[in-house]
């Protein structure tokens, strides 16, 4: 466990904040890898590694957290100077290919995609949000990716609809070699199905409950895979063959529960 101090806090949206800290080891994380974030006396949560904005990328890293339940809200409320613990980075990252790539993400699922775009030239990013309020990382994305397309469910900003809508349009007209996606499981499912239909390689970064993060407890089991080791990034071709993907997840006791 490494204790780090939060050195900067950036509001991304009314519910999402980026916390920046100095930690060489996390700074080395590959896009798609995650860390376990310890909130002393409170909880420990898996978080994708974000880029540290203007801070030195060799020394700094960040996480972008959405306030949801108690623990994420506690983390969201940490201020400059507060201490958190981190361990990792863990897991399988996106495989970086120097080809024409298309990124599709939503919500905090954009985090690993932003890191990917920073580490590797990416051609197009489609980012989905519920409404204008929730559009995050747009400026950042535009500074790194050749083309950025924003969709909102309610049409309050960018294109109206889901991120998967412009995806289909693009694929009809342009050639892409690989699609990377991260976001709500339903969204990823659609992205992977579309990629499959168009015969394009795809990778998605998945989420399950993570307790140990290091391949021991099996709380992150997804079919025969252990997401903290075999994932969180997995190949679309494998994911689409899974029985549990898009349907169910293991709860904290290990029982399969429906995701719907």
């Amino acid at each position, binding site marked *: 466990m490494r204790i780090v101090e939060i050195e900067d806090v950036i509001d991304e949206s009314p519910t999402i904040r980026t916390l920046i800290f100095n930690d060489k080891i996390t700074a080395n994380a590959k896009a798609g890898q995650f860390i376990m974030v310890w909130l002393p006396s409170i909880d420990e949560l898996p978080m994708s590694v974000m880029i540290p904005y203007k801070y030195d990328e060799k020394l700094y890293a960040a996480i972008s957290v959405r306030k949801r339940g108690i623990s994420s809200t506690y983390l969201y409320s940490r201020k400059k100077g507060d*201490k958190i613990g981190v361990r990792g980075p863990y897991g399988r990252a996106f495989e970086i290919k120097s080809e024409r790539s298309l990124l599709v993400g939503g919500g905090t699922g954009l985090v690993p995609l932003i890191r990917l775009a920073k580490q590797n030239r990416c051609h197009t990013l489609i980012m989905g949000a519920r409404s204008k309020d929730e559009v995050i990382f747009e400026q950042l994305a535009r500074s790194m990716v050749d083309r950025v397309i924003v969709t909102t469910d309610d049409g309050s900003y960018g294109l109206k609809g889901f991120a998967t809508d412009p995806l289909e349009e693009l694929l009809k007209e342009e050639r892409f070699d690989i699609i990377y996606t991260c976001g709500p499981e339903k969204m990823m499912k659609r992205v992977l199905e579309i990629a499959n239909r168009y015969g394009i390689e795809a990778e998605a970064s998945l989420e399950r409950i993570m*307790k140990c993060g290091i391949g021991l*407890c099996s709380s992150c089991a997804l079919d025969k895979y252990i997401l903290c080791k075999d994932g969180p990034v997995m190949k679309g071709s494998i994911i689409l063959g899974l029985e549990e993907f898009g349907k169910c997840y293991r709860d*904290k006791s290990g029982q399969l529960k429906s995701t719907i």
Partner: protein
Amino acid sequence: MLSTDICVRLRNPTLLASGILGISYPVLKRVYEAGAGAVISKSISIEAREGYKNPIIVKTEHGWINAVGLANPGVEYFAKEIENCDIPLIVNLVGSNEEEFGKMVKILDNLKIIAYEINFSCPHVEKVGLEIGDDPELVYKIVKKIRSLSKKPIIVKLGLGSSNMIEIARVANDGGADAITAINTIRAMCIDIDVAKPILSNRIGGLSGAAIKPIAIRCVYELSKAFDIPIIGCGGIKDWRDAIEFILAGASAVQIGSAVSERWLDIFNEINNGIMQYMLRKGYKSIDEMIGIARY
């Protein structure tokens, strides 16, 4: 050449320890296919348990400390999980009294599992595990109860509690246990000095990994001197050298736990290959010939 007997014949002496990747049947099957001689489930209890809040594990300098809190889906759910079991699976059970164990065995006994392992040694959950394992009378009653309900081999898993391990092994043996696993994790704690707080949500957990190996070797040595039934060594095994050390101390087989995290599923094949090379070098023809020879 690698096959060994723990009251049931195994293709090799490396087992997946309980609590490691042991909740999902597809995962257990994958571990077996990756090379394990048999796999052991997470400790299963009568009711589902969510376990403790995170953090449930912390890596220390020479091992890990975990307090998962016996998270498991409960016996009924798990019986369904493994209903089509076609691998050598040992189900590990945890409970508070003989009635609970009796109920669980009734639910499981028709399944194609090869043995039970009884967790008398979880060091960080109240009223089960070590608290039971420290009570000779209760251990006897529980083993006896399971014996009366099942013909499957019963393995008792012991740890470092507040009792004499040999005495507990004796009553378990009297009650009808067929084999002994030693050891479980050892009660331990890790405090972060920067924030001045224990790291685990449960504060206290169980120490596993290389740190406990010399203690586990000693336990296997003492148990194998005292009993004629198979002893299964567990604690800190990370390579073939460790596995051999357990076998020479008296173990008929070994379990791999936390090291799975570092070497991942290849660890079973790696250890089995290492054991085989060692046997070839030393001229051993079977695991049997090696068991306990450091005693003489």
